[in-house]
């Protein structure tokens, strides 16, 4: 089921009637989610990603704009008539019911033609439980399950009525780091198996990048960029997106373009073909540095962290927007202890230029 959002806007009225403090939680969001894809809504807290999810779900009504599931306009439909499955951030499993009762609950609500017999319900419940691999826990209460197991039960409960769209609100935020890795693979697998169009919300860019077919980066209610995770990472549309994606985060410098060259301080570090002379913000991904004795970019070395597979160089530079710069280079490189400065050359596809004021990307020819 394809999901289409047209100019979706949500405005929360101001609490104080006199003050004009209304909050635009989601601003003019237009996007078509292709059938059977896993889409991650990504952004810092307060960016409107959860509000978007709740509007797709129907728990919140959009102030303007429309939502289509396939060709059906569902904008005015209550959640129960939309055919959505929602997994809450803290799962919201009914604590007094067993896992089986929790999963059966949505089925028991079905009325009329959709009504199932007891045997059919049980069959469906066990089918779904098998997909999420909790069929051996059916008689337990939620309190007797680990966080990861509860998460699966919540997904099973959302899947059991065969929703047209599956919605996950911060699905991994309540899990510990290790379980998070495991569960995100699990979500991806479940989504592939069921082929249900899935939208999930997260503030964790790594999480979004690792499992989504598409990511939507949002900031203060406005969509910043939509695309495949790798595309968004390797070609951010603005400085916010560049900063938000990637661990360790991108290094940002204040520099300028002069004579079609990019300058950080007095050093020309890259070409900028076809760009007029101007002040710019320069983003360089940590993996964009190449250690080179005669490289054009000099930094003051403060620390070298060897992490097995690669080496992380922590350095400072007077033009850096952050206190430190981080460069990740191959572990084969050896840096002597007494070195005070190191020189880099920079991979042309890992350096991005942004307008100083608007923070929009300045695209360089030939890249």
């Amino acid at each position, binding site marked *: 089921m394809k999901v289409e959002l047209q100019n979706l806007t949500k405005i929360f009225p101001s609490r104080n009637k006199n003050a004009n403090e209304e909050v635009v939680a989601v601003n003019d969001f237009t996007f078509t989610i292709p059938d059977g894809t896993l889409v991650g809504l990504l952004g810092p807290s307060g960016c409107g990603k959860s509000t978007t999810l709740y509007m797709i779900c129907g*728990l919140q009504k959009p102030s303007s704009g429309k939502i289509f599931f396939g060709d059906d306009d569902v904008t005015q439909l209550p959640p129960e008539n939309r055919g959505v499955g929602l997994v809450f951030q803290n799962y919201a499993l009914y604590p007094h019911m067993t896992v089986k009762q929790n999963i059966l609950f949505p089925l028991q609500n079905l009325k009329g033609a959709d009504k199932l017999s007891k045997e059919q319900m049980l069959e469906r419940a066990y089918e779904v439980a098998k997909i999420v691999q909790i069929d051996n826990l059916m008689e337990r209460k939620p309190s007797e399950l680990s966080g990861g197991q509860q998460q699966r039960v919540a997904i099973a409960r959302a899947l059991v009525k065969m929703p047209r769209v599956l919605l996950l609100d911060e699905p991994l935020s309540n899990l510990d780091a290790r379980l998070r890795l495991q569960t995100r693979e699990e979500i991806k697998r479940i989504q592939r198996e069921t082929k249900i169009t899935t939208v999930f919300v997260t503030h964790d860019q790594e999480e979004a990048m690792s499992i989504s077919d598409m990511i939507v980066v949002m900031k203060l209610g406005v969509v910043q960029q939509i695309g495949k995770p790798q595309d968004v990472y390797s070609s951010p549309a603005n400085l916010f997106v560049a900063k938000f994606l990637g661990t360790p985060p991108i290094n940002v410098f204040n520099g300028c373009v002069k004579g079609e060259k990019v300058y950080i301080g007095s050093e020309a570090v890259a070409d900028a073909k076809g760009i007029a002379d101007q002040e710019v913000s320069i983003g360089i991904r940590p993996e964009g540095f190449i250690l080179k004795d005669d490289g054009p970019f000099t930094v003051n070395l403060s620390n070298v962290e060897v992490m097995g597979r690669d080496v992380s160089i922590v350095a400072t530079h007077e033009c850096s927007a952050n206190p430190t710069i981080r460069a990740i280079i191959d572990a084969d490189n050896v840096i002597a202890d007494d070195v005070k400065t190191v020189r880099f050359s920079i991979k042309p596809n890992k350096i991005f230029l942004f307008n100083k004021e608007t923070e929009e990307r300045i695209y360089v020819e030939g890249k």
Partner: protein
Amino acid sequence: MADNNMVESRHPWKAWLYLAPALVLLAIFTVWPIINTIRMAFLENYSGLKAVGGATFKFGIGNFTKVIKYKKFVQCLKNTVLICFLTVPISTALALLISVALNSIKWFQKPLQTIFFLPYVTNSIAIGMVFAAMFNIVGSFYGTENQLIVTAGIINNVIQFFGGQPVNWINYGSSYAANIAVMTIYIVWNALPFKILILLGGLQSVNKQYYDAAKVDGTSKARIFGRITVPLLSPMIAYVVITGFIGGFKEYTSIVGIFGESMGPADDAKRLNTMVGFVYDSLSTNNQGRASAAALILFGLILVVTLLELYVSKKKVHY
């Protein structure tokens, strides 16, 4: 820790000194009366008067056998149990409905909450007098053309307004059923505020996401109530039921509030007397032994019912 232990072992009497006021008061006003009640209950025909005369009393279960055979006592027991089993379920169910309704409205919630809470802070004798006035009939109920009914009370006025026959609720010649009906209405109304307070508090602490989840799944209002609200509220429901039964078994003031010390309509005084009323009556006629025995029976009854409730709640209540 070592320091603490040193201080403790050096001045152990200090702890007892601090505890002493409470311990002394508890011993005088709680522990000793309990012991004394048990002692008196087993001293046959014990009365304060005879004790003054230096007489001794035989030790035995005579008080208990006498009390149980006593017709008045059986009537009191019947009234108490009847009131308990009528008022607790009704008031609990009503309180549940009212608190769910209060919880789901947005505006006017606070004023309504206050109105429902008012009986809690009102003196129950005063409430009883108002209720008595509402159900009262001034003049003769069996009024012939000559004997005008001055007022039939607001309840009868309402009944008559809708074309019904006035009922003799609490006056001379009223029926036992009518008396119990009045008592039930009064006690239920009196018991509502506390129950609403507890249940509303419980409702407000229920995670809203359960309701959102149920909504997404298309759960009907009735099913949400039965399958989600009630189970999640079950600890509070168990609490109000248990305390309700304990309160019900101790019922006395409400009867006095409506019927006065006659504890019944004028033609059949003491008809609505309760267990606690029986204990008071026995005391006022210098039958301490009998009173103590009745008090212990009441205690046993409350204990058994409460244990039963706890047993049931272990199976049905989700904590």
